[in-house]
């Protein structure tokens, strides 16, 4: 019961923040003024009552960012310039300007929820309907938002095992030494334009610490955290797996989110110490824009994992079907001897979507191994690029990489491109790369339709088959929804 009360409290806190901060003075304001300067950074840090070191770190990042140039040339993407001054960098969870009921929500979005089988009340929360989280919270949490009550029930158990799972702002106060030690240790504040901007202005995200020898007994998911319904533009996630520990983390949820933020620049850092394992799965399904390419999210994210310890392992599994533009290269730094990095990816682009995605595997330690399986599906006029780097440093004796990149084209107006970079500086290392490009054949479509499947179901079935190697890496409950999602994202791609 205590767990339920706690969640109710959390829900109330979210809805009440507006009153707590009020609107009188600048610093008390709900929303930071438009624009980006050092004061914006100070404002965010003050709002979060952060320690001095963190503010300093943010400011350093901001100063570096100002000198940086937006990487507009090397990736195969095109989009109008983004005005970084024309945005708010801090907003308390919004209680205004939200749809008053589902009637005001984009019907297309609702259709998708329905197809995914999401209950009505949960739909309201995902669509950001005014007061949806707050409406008699006890019901919202217990009866409807099952996953949340599951999470709170488990929270006590997790704490007992010494696992820390909270928002990163909370972690800054709860376990500052861990945050200070690891924040920016994988993705430094000088890393790249978007990551550096994130360092300066990140507002929230998740924090996970798994103590030595602990195997986290459940999948940890942002979906379980209710405040996630209002993700910031600049999320920051930090996961630390101490020696001999294991954790599986799920990011996002498979229902598409209504979100008015155009630009998303998240950073995810993973640290695996000796014999530790982190499995990180993502299903990204943000608004891709309409069939004419209007609107949609720009997703510029930096995800990197450090296999610091011997025999450690990090696996990235991603299913990317959303966003107008995706720019994303989850990477592994294989520093510990015998450490293993894996990247399993499905990226689907339809209509006018663009994706430039792939991975980097940096082999530093001896006998480090990496596996890359990338499945790209393009339909409509979408453009997709796999961009991967496999780098073997001189000391990486016996390192091995196997890369497999398969592209599937639907129709003849889309494009798929493969850009593998291989840098091998150790003669004992072995690097293998295979790439294929195929089209959904008329024969396959006709065969399925002769057996009674509609053209859309046939495409969905064939594409799911094409992605199978990757989808099977997803945790069970995710896999089923991801399969449906694959079909939904390709609707209207044939015929």
């Amino acid at each position, binding site marked *: 019961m205590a767990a339920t009360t706690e969640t109710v409290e959390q829900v109330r806190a979210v809805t009440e923040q507006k009153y707590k901060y009020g609107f009188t003075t600048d610093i008390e304001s709900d929303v930071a003024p438009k624009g980006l300067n050092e004061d914006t950074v100070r404002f965010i840090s003050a709002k979060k009552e952060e320690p001095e070191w963190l503010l300093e770190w943010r400011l350093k990042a901001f100063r570096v960012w100002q000198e940086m140039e937006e990487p507009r040339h090397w990736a195969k993407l095109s989009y109008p310039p983004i005005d970084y001054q024309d945005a708010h960098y801090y907003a308390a969870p919004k209680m205004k300007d939200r749809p008053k009921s589902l009637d005001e929500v984009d019907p297309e979005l609702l259709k998708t929820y329905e197809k995914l089988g999401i209950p009505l009340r949960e739909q309201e929360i995902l669509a950001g309907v005014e007061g949806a989280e707050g409406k008699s919270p006890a019901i919202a949490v217990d009866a409807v938002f099952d996953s949340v009550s599951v999470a709170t029930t488990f929270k006590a158990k997790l704490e007992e095992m010494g696992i820390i799972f909270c928002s990163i702002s909370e972690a800054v106060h709860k376990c500052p030494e861990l945050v200070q030690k690891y924040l920016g240790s994988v993705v430094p504040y000088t890393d790249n334009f978007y990551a550096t901007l994130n360092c300066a202005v990140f507002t929230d995200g998740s924090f996970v610490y798994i103590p030595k020898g602990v195997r986290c007994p459940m999948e940890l998911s942002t979906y379980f955290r209710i405040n996630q319904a209002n993700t910031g533009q600049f999320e920051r996630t930090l996961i630390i797996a101490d020696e001999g520990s294991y954790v599986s983390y799920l990011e996002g949820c498979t229902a598409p989110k209504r979100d008015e933020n155009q630009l998303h620049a998240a950073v995810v850092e993973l640290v695996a110490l000796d014999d530790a394992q982190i499995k990180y799965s993502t299903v990204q399904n943000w608004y891709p824009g309409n069939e004419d390419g209007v609107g949609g999210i720009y997703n510029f994210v930096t995800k990197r994992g450090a296999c610091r310890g011997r025999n450690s392992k990090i696996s990235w599994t991603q299913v990317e079907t959303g966003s107008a533009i995706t720019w994303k290269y989850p990477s592994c730094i294989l520093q510990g001897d015998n450490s293993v990095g894996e990247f399993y990816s499905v990226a689907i682009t339809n209509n006018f979507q663009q994706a430039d995605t792939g991975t980097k595997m940096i082999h530093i330690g001896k006998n480090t191994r990496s596996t890359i399986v990338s499945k790209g599906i393009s339909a409509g006029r979408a453009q997709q690029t796999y961009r991967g780097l496999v780098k073997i440093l001189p000391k990486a004796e016996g390192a091995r990489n196997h890369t497999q990149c398969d592209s599937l084209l639907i129709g003849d107006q889309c494009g798929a491109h493969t850009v593998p970079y291989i840098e091998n500086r150790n003669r004992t290392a072995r690097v293998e790369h295979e790439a294929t490009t195929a089209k959904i054949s008329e024969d396959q479509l*006709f*065969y399925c*339709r*002769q*057996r*009674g499947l509609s053209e859309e179901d046939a495409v969905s079935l064939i594409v799911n088959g*094409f992605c199978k190697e990757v989808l099977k890496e997803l945790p069970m409950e995710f896999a089923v929804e991801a399969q449906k999602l694959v079909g939904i994202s390709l609707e209207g791609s044939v015929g």
Partner: protein
Amino acid sequence: MIEIKNLHATVDGKEILKGIDLTINPGEVHAIMGPNGSGKSTLSYVLAGRDGYEITEGSVSFFGKDLLEMEPEERAAAGLFLAFQYPVEIPGVANTTFLKSALNAIRKQRGEPELDAMQFLKLVREKTKALNMTDEMLKRAVNVGFSGGEKKRNETLQMAVLQPKFAILDETDSGLDIDALKIVAEGVNALRSPERSMLVITHYQRLLDYIVPDHVHVLAFGKIQRSGGKELALELEKNGYAEFGVNEAA
């Protein structure tokens, strides 16, 4: 059941079917024989609704409906099944998944309730056993890495599960060993019923020893040149197609 009248079809401007007339009544089994390239598969594709064929003349009615107006999946739901001469591979899609999706898609189109996993498994296990196929083949991806004979057997399994009203078997006997031929023929015969009809395309009279047809037709140069009873198949086996102006050496 199915009435084909003066059917003409062209591919890339080349006329392949040059006026086919054929009526099949409920319960009947018709066999079509004919030289390579005479248009047998083309006829089966046209009936199943494959893209790429232009129907320049003629009509096909199926249970009183205009078959040529229907989408391929609608024809399937109406009870038409084609066992492919060259079954298609679908990598990554398990045979069971494929079959279940197909069966439920058809049931859904017909307004029948879909089968759940348990019900489906029971049905498919039964049929698999009858065809002497292993469970292992059910788990494998559709036709991927199947031997020629296994593919044909798999087509028969699909037919047994989908229970069509009108089945076209395009050279389902090619590539089968002697035992498999018997098993497949038994599978086909098990489906024979007063409501169900079949069109069996074959090059070998041997198959017709097992699946005894009511009528045999010779298709050559895009037309049915001669029709008869099952003895016609024996005659063809002996004399070939020379009588129809087909040069055997060619």
